[in-house]
């Protein structure tokens, strides 16, 4: 009952001052619209840029580093225990980059339910032979199915069919840049030389475009068996295991765990690409800062308008109090006014923010380095709308708080005497 009465009084005051109210509401609408559009766009960009890395990067990469043994023979000698020794120019032994206890590791990964999947890989240094010239390159031997499932391989094969890599023996998907340099078309046969001097003819079945040009000039893909053949290695030769986890946040901890467990190098994605994370979080921070600044400005607008309204309505407030409305009631009337401005302004802002995001989403955006992107990226995360809604109510409440308190403290005697 009382609630209804307070509401009806608030609405009447609002309607009587609808122009100012509208201006205040438009302020909120504008800031929420910009807040939503800005965050959606920024976050879309972040996702896209992260995607460049995250899509194609394992959460944990397990591999063998070729490095000198940490324990030199003298360290093992009992005789010189407790002595200092200095050995200079230690060289690594001629050890292959192969992962040794591969079957055991695969069994462990299979049984670990934090793991979404894993894909073995062979990295082979090669030269692409173009006439007399040799271009350096890297051939990644991959398990085509798993690579497609876990690392969106398919999205990055811009010409040809990725599955041919598995079905056609001795086939290769060339990096776009490499293909251009070699003038190799799909269906052509190219020749590569390994670092050990083996030569091999490979049939081009597609182009790969990662979005990072330097990478595309060098990297190509072949199936695991083709890579093993190329290197003259046996069926169980693997240089990398790429692990994808159910939650990317677990990567650093699990990388350490695996490194200990398997006695191997394990690099998590956060360590390998820390610069991207920093960039993302700073962009997000800036968007929030701008959005919140806009809201605060809108909040001051509401504050002004309420103050004005209260100044104009002194008489009304006085008589309401004289006829039995308490300070609390008056306070609630003005808070209700503030919140309705926030509610309708904010609601409108969410709506227009969605519209604006949609428009941005349809603006064509083509860039050679990003084959899968056709328009500006937008992230329609409901989180932004939720934050926008909460913020619009919170700022309007705060903007209304002091004017409302002032109104509730108006002494009717002072006003009535002043007449």
């Amino acid at each position: 009952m009382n609630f209804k009465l307070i509401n009806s009084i608030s609405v009447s005051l609002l309607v009587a001052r609808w122009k100012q109210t509208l201006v205040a509401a438009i302020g909120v609408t504008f800031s929420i619209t910009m807040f939503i559009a800005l965050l959606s766009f920024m976050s879309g960009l972040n996702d896209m840029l992260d995607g460049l890395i995250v899509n194609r990067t394992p959460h944990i990469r397990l591999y063998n580093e070729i490095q000198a043994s940490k324990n030199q023979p003298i360290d093992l000698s009992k005789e010189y225990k407790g002595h200092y020794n200095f050995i200079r120019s230690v060289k690594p032994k001629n050890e292959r980059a192969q992962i040794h206890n591969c079957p055991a590791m695969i069994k462990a990964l299979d049984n670990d339910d934090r793991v979404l999947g894993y894909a073995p890989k062979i990295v082979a240094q090669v030269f692409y032979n173009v006439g007399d010239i040799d271009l350096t390159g890297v051939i990644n031997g991959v398990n085509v199915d798993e690579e497609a499932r876990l690392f969106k391989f398919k999205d990055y094969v811009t010409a040809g069919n990725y599955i041919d890599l598995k079905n056609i023996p001795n086939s290769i998907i060339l990096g776009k840049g490499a293909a251009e340099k070699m003038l190799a078309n799909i269906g052509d046969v190219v020749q590569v030389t390994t670092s050990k001097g083996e030569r091999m003819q490979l049939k081009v079945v597609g182009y790969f475009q990662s979005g990072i040009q330097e990478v595309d000039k060098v990297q190509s893909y072949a199936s695991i068996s083709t890579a093993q053949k190329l290197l003259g290695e046996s069926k169980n030769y693997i240089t990398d295991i790429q692990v994808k986890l159910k939650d990317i946040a677990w990567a650093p901890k699990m990388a350490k765990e695996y490194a200990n467990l398997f006695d191997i190098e394990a690099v998590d994605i956060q360590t390998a690409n820390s610069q991207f994370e920093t960039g993302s979080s700073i962009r997000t921070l800036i968007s929030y800062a701008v959005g919140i600044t806009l809201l605060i400005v809108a909040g001051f607008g509401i504050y002004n308008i309420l103050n004005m309204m209260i100044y104009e309505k002194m008489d009304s407030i006085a008589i309401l109090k004289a006829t039995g409305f308490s300070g609390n009631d008056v306070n609630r009337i003005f808070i209700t006014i503030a919140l309705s401005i926030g509610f309708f302004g904010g609601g409108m802002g969410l709506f227009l923010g969605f519209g604006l995001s949609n428009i941005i989403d349809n603006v064509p955006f083509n860039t050679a380095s990003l084959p899968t992107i056709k328009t500006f990226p937008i992230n329609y995360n409901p989180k932004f709308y939720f934050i926008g809604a909460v913020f619009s109510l919170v700022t309007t409440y705060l903007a209304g708080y002091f004017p409302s308190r002032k109104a509730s403290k108006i002494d009717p005697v002072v006003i009535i005497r002043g007449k």
Partner: protein
Amino acid sequence: MESIILQANKISKYFHDPSTIQVLKEITFSLNKGEFTSIIGKSGCGKSTLLYILSTMDTDYTGDLRIDGVGMRDKKEGELARVRNEKIGFVFQFHYLLNEFNVLRNVMLPGLKLGKYSEKEVEERAYQKLKILGIEKEALKIPNQLSGGQKQRVAIARAMVNDPLIIMGDEPTGNLDKKNTEIVFDIFKELSDVYNQTLLIVTHDNEFANRTHRIIEMEDGRIIRM
């Protein structure tokens, strides 16, 4: 008949700005149910100040005020608002109607605040009051479409809507011409005679005062006749 509705006991009031002066000096009196009382006195003798205290709007005083047998001293702001809403109707020199609402709604507001009756019933009661005051035809106009006399009658209807124990007025006819003053007086008289309404009206108009049941005369913050 002789039930005491309002009792003031040694009420004193000081103002401290610019210098401390005592405007009310131990005012003591009581009002019985159904009495039509007027307060007169020279300008500046403290009539309005007294009325604001009696109506519970001003709480900065010494002494004791009982309304309907209940002390007002220790009540909180919200409780006093409730007392004003339920037991006191107030009419000022200026009408203080809200132009955001029509006449009927203005009269209804204190009734809706009281929450004792449904909105429909409050509307019915408000309409009845307007009828008693002969302005039911203006019910749907907004206040600034009315004449001064009509506005003041709406303000009286608003004061009546919750059937208060007492209606107080601070020079309610002060802004009105002879004819409208007459109308308002007749209304008060009728409320007193027909409805046994208790009334306490501050006035400068001796003719008006002489026609009431009882005159309280003040001078320099004291009651000199009652």
